């Protein structure tokens, strides 16, 4: 069974007389355990697509299923964990209390909660900060707490909207390495939104390239076809392999209109947005 199935989805926002075609005729399948990135310039509908899958918004037309269920049912069953660009931690709660929040809301008893949180903090390397408050942590550490929280209920699917978007390049690469490890350990499928081509290529089995006005999918690059190991098995060294650069060039080409000739500076523009 596939983790996500999106079929013929449109999402039109109308505000007064303004009409925005955020998504048009989107078809996408994410298989169980697969890592899929959405990439494209701002406003191409990446977040909108992710929010539709999360049942935070509903499509204007078309159908989406998550593990064969409606998105609503999947949300209520806690089939997915979610993380955003803002870590979104509650500042008055300690790291422990933040991570255990979903568990507590869904009625897990205290002893089991404590054990699970300890395990999660171990997983993201923050055991020493269990009693800290979010404002005592760096941006990267806050984001790790948010990821631990997203993993708390052992979801089979992770939805991540630019989770590393606010981090510096060095922290970012370290977080990418950690995410690969976490995905290998949990075996979860991931739908990952990003602006960065190298990030998308390094993390993903497949990269979905989107373009705006109207928001749509313009191409899908299978990274494994460029000779990279599956996403779960990647190590930091993959960033130096020739297959990595081939995949980066391929994604870049599609982003710039499928001409196949990457523009020398235009490509950076996507990164820096």
């Amino acid at each position, binding site marked *: 069974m596939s983790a996500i199935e999106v079929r013929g989805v449109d999402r039109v926002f109308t505000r007064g007389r303004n009409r925005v075609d955020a998504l048009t005729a989107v078809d996408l399948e994410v298989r169980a355990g697969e890592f899929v990135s959405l990439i494209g310039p701002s406003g191409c509908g990446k977040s909108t697509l992710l*929010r539709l899958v*999360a*049942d*935070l918004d509903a499509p204007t037309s078309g159908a989406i299923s998550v593990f064969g269920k409606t998105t609503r049912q999947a*949300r*209520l069953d*806690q089939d*997915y964990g*979610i993380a*955003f660009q*803002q*870590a*979104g*931690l*509650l*500042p*008055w709660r300690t790291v422990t209390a933040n991570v255990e*929040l*979903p568990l507590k*809301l*869904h009625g897990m008893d205290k002893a089991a909660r404590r054990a699970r949180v300890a395990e999660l903090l171990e997983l993201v390397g923050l055991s020493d900060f269990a009693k800290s*408050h*979010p*404002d005592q*942590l760096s941006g990267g550490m*806050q984001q790790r707490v948010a990821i631990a929280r997203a993993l708390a209920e052992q979801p089979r699917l992770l939805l991540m909207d630019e989770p590393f978007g606010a981090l510096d390049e060095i922290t970012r690469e370290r977080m990418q390495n950690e995410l690969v490890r976490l995905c290998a350990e949990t075996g979860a499928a991931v739908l990952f939104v990003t602006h960065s081509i190298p990030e998308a290529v390094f993390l993903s089995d497949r990269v979905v390239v989107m373009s705006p006005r109207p928001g749509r999918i313009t191409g899908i690059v299978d990274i494994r076809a460029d000779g990279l190991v599956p996403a779960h098995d990647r190590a930091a060294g993959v960033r130096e392999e020739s297959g990595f650069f081939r995949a980066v060039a391929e994604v870049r080409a599609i982003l710039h209109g499928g001409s196949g000739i990457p523009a020398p500076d235009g490509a950076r523009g996507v990164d820096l947005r």
Partner: protein
Amino acid sequence: MTTTWTRIRPVLLGALGVGLVVAVWDLYKAFGPEEGVRLGERTLILPRTTDLAMPHSWEMVQRFGEPVTSLAGSPTAFEAVWDAGLFSLGLATRGWVIGVVIGLLLALVMCRFRIAESAILPWVVLSQTVPLIAIAPLVRRWGSQIDLFGHVWTSEDSVAVIAAYLAFFPVAVGALRGLKSPARTHLDLMHAYGVGWWRTLLVLRLPASVPFLLPALRLGAASAVVGAVVAEVSIGLKGGLGRMVIDYAQSASGDPAKPWAPIFGAVAIGLVAAGAVGLIGLALRPFRVTGAFR
């Protein structure tokens, strides 16, 4: 070491500020011109320094220890102000509690229903533009028509209601801002967890509102004190500082330090009210962090 200093510093600075005001007062009285400072012929920009217009600061303090009137058995001014202060503070507290409850309820309703916000908020703002003098007779008239399980409406009730009328406003506005302060990320998260409006309120909105609510509660307390004192005058209720200010002002010509006693009393109960709200802030301390609320 540093912590003791940071704790003592505001107290020292506060004392220094009061001392400065006292010093300026007495220095001006000592060296300022008898007939005050005028701009041109008519405009008086600094007061006369006669004993009648400006009693010495120590005279005002001494006055507290002297009897209110020369009649036998008259209590000292301090005792009189103390009793009146407690009376007014009691009314202000009743008003504050009523105002806070109403303000919070209004904020909750406005937060829950978009329509309610656009329907109620303008009225909430408009309510504060009505002068107190206009409200007092209305409150008394309406109150006298209310029959609450045999409870007879008193002037005290009218004063408390007017104090509440002033106190609910900052609470309603502050609480609404606080309840609406969580970012979209947080609200999306709650939705993703499948929790409803009430649990979102308890887990997210109420804790998030604390940094907005505390200043609103303090403002409400100050408003309730002012409301109670002024309403005592408008309603004509005896026993509190409001009437005392008026009564004592009449002895100003023979006893210039006397009118200052109830004024200091009003300042004191204002400070007590603000301090009491500070204690609430202490209890809610864990929720006062806003630093990482992104």
